[in-house]
């Protein structure tokens, strides 16, 4: 099997699984218990938290462990918007966001908030000029992801921070789920950041919301008051420790893997160059490639590659079961056949040379196979 759907989820590092098992074995205590064992567990939790913040370059932020980025995004958007309601009712959001951001924003309309979408440039990044036009005194919340999950475009986070310096009331939220382990970015001025461990070789079911001012957050589900009363429920310590470790390994491997994955990206691009009815979207991070077989359906290409034992996806796993056109590709100004015929290939630090070679061979074979329908 050649797994190239790493933007959907990754295989956990062996060391990360060791940590997960060992913590379950030796620190299975409730971090909220006041007995010695509970306090030891709490210390491990704090050490994990510290490590996550330090590796993210967020020494002055606070970290709340959640079940993943979807929950982190929900907490950030819902609670901050409610907190900011007296100051304004408008949120700005890029068209490129993940459903765990877009759908929350849309739901917040019911509470009287206005949601304005920032337009997208053809290269898949937000249009900063349009962003500047949308900014006004009623804006209290801006959310733009760090790296897009469909095409891998890198968003101008630092530039947005700079623009927002004149709007101190605005809370800037970044969903960094697809960026971690792929590219280093400076989030130090961002008000809140979401991450999910399983996207960087951690285990599923753990993520974090890192926040500059924890006061701006409040609980959206209620319970025993864990994680600073923001996210109740017995803390997933094995997951948190495993995430801290996954983040450390990802960080150590990043520079080497970035160079390697960049070479993979170039090789695939070169191999597809000039082929009839093939369109490759511009890449931001080299890990994510979006390729269209114009005239075919993405699903057909995915299945055809599957018969070569290569696993990729159409658009994103979270959206691929929805029958509508992908918002990101649409926002980038792509024509309908390009969108319908698109697949997403996503590499990881564990992807090997041989696998890329086999991918290229398979892409050529599939191109031949379905040549009749391509236009």
């Amino acid at each position, binding site marked *: 099997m050649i797994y190239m759907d790493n933007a959907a989820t990754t295989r956990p590092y062996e060391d990360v699984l060791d*940590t997960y098992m060992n913590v379950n074995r030796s620190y299975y205590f409730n971090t909220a218990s006041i007995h010695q064992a509970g306090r030891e567990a709490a210390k491990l939790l*704090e050490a994990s938290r510290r*490590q996550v913040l330090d590796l993210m370059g967020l020494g002055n932020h606070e970290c709340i462990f959640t079940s993943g980025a979807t929950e982190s995004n929900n907490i950030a958007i819902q609670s901050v918007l409610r907190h900011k309601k007296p100051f304004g009712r408008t949120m700005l959001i890029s068209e490129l966001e993940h459903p765990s951001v877009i759908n929350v924003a849309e739901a917040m309309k019911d509470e009287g908030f206005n949601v304005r979408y920032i337009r997208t440039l053809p290269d898949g990044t937000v249009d900063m000029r349009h962003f500047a036009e949308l900014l006004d005194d009623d804006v209290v919340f801006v959310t733009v992801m760090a790296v897009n999950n469909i095409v891998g475009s890198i968003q101008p986070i630092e530039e947005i921070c700079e623009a927002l310096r004149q709007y101190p009331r605005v809370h800037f939220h970044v969903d960094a789920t697809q960026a971690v382990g792929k590219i280093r970015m400076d989030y130090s001025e961002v008000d809140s950041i979401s991450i999910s461990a399983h996207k960087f070789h951690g285990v599923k079911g753990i993520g974090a919301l890192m926040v500059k001012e924890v006061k701006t957050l409040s609980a959206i589900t209620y319970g025993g008051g864990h994680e600073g009363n923001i996210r109740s429920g017995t803390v997933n310590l094995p997951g948190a420790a495993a995430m801290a470790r996954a983040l450390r390994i990802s960080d150590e491997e990043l520079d080497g893997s970035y160079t390697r994955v960049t070479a993979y990206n170039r090789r695939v691009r070169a191999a597809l160059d000039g082929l009839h009815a093939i369109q490759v979207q511009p890449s931001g991070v080299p890990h994510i490639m979006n390729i269209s077989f114009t005239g075919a359906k993405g699903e057909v290409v995915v299945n055809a590659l599957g018969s070569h034992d290569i696993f990729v996806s159409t658009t994103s796993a979270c959206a691929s079961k929805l029958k509508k056109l992908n918002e990101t590709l649409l926002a980038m100004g792509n024509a309908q056949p390009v969108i319908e015929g698109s697949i997403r290939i996503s590499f990881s630090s564990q992807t090997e040379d041989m696998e890329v070679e086999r991918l290229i061979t398979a892409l050529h074979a599939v191109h031949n196979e379905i040549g009749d329908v391509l236009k």
Partner: protein
Amino acid sequence: MIYDHILVRYGEITLKTRNRKMFINALRQNMKRALSDFDVELNAHWDRAYITLGDEAPDAVMDALENVNGILSVSPVAKLERSEAAMKDTAVHFADGFDEGDTFKIEVKRADKSYHLKTFDIQQMLGGHVLDNVPKLDVDVKHPDHQIMVEVRIDGIYMYHEVRPCIGGLPIGTGGRALLMLSGGIDSPVAGLEVMKKGVEIEAVHFHSPPYTSPQATEKVKQLIDIMSKRTGADIKLHIVPFTELQTKIYDWIPDNMSMTTTRRIMLIIAERLAEQLDAKAIVNGENLGQVASQTLASMHAINAVTNFPVLRPLLTLEKNEIVAMARKYGTYETSVLPYEDCCTIFKPKSPKTKPVVEKVEKFESKVDFEPMIEKALAGIECYSVNDAEENEAFKSLL
């Protein structure tokens, strides 16, 4: 050496009846921690505890137990086969170590009433044997210099003579939790250790004002925590509060002669809130009546007015030289006198009021909104404990 057990006698635990088990459990935990470096077996019973030594040296094990709160005394014990010859040999072995002209007595406990020799028979036999073999000694049954203890039990005969006094008191953790205001001076560590004697678990709070106070001053406080933790076997947590912003605000807004009072009041407010968070039931400090301007009755009255928490001052009426002697005994003195500036010394006014009036202080304080700065200081607290270094090492393999 012939010793194979350590006998541990309880301190004030023996005054407890219905809840004694809780105290014994706490003591067992604390002894375990103090003995973590040794490969020994610990059995804590209703009235005493036994430690089976294995290959460990009795002196080292007793040293480790000396400062565990709740232990009255310890004795190294030899376990013998139930024979007269073994008892005689051991009694002479003990007696050989006594000084010329000392007196002794044989004390016998027959826990196993079926043993063929009666108490008096054993006393007579061993007393006579010692007198015959160690002529430098005399018997005195009323006020002996040494007691040779013989306990006859079913599994053997236990003999000992040496009794090493320990710190006594109650096991830490049985008396609830208190927050110690730890400045880094001589008094506050002693105050903390005194309260711990009564079984109270301590967490400490320290205020630092970088860049006015040096990192060394904070390091010094951490060292004090290390010393106190090591001495008591407790894992004392230190909460370090960033105080610069408040300190400079006070300096700017409160008249010089009252700034000290306000500083102490705000520190106490922060301590109270932290204590609430930690579920601590009291605040402890090293105040000593009349020692300095902030420790006069009038000052205590003005400062204490900000809290309803009990503020414990175990050193209240001691002489300074008594406190110094205690600090030396506890091993904190040398560290306490290291010459680093703390926030008390840097912003010290020239002539602070020795009789501040609450209403006047409040009037000046009302001109400044300290609340957001207090919240910020609380939010900026950093934690330290003696286990940090070791545990981070332990966690390293996991993270």
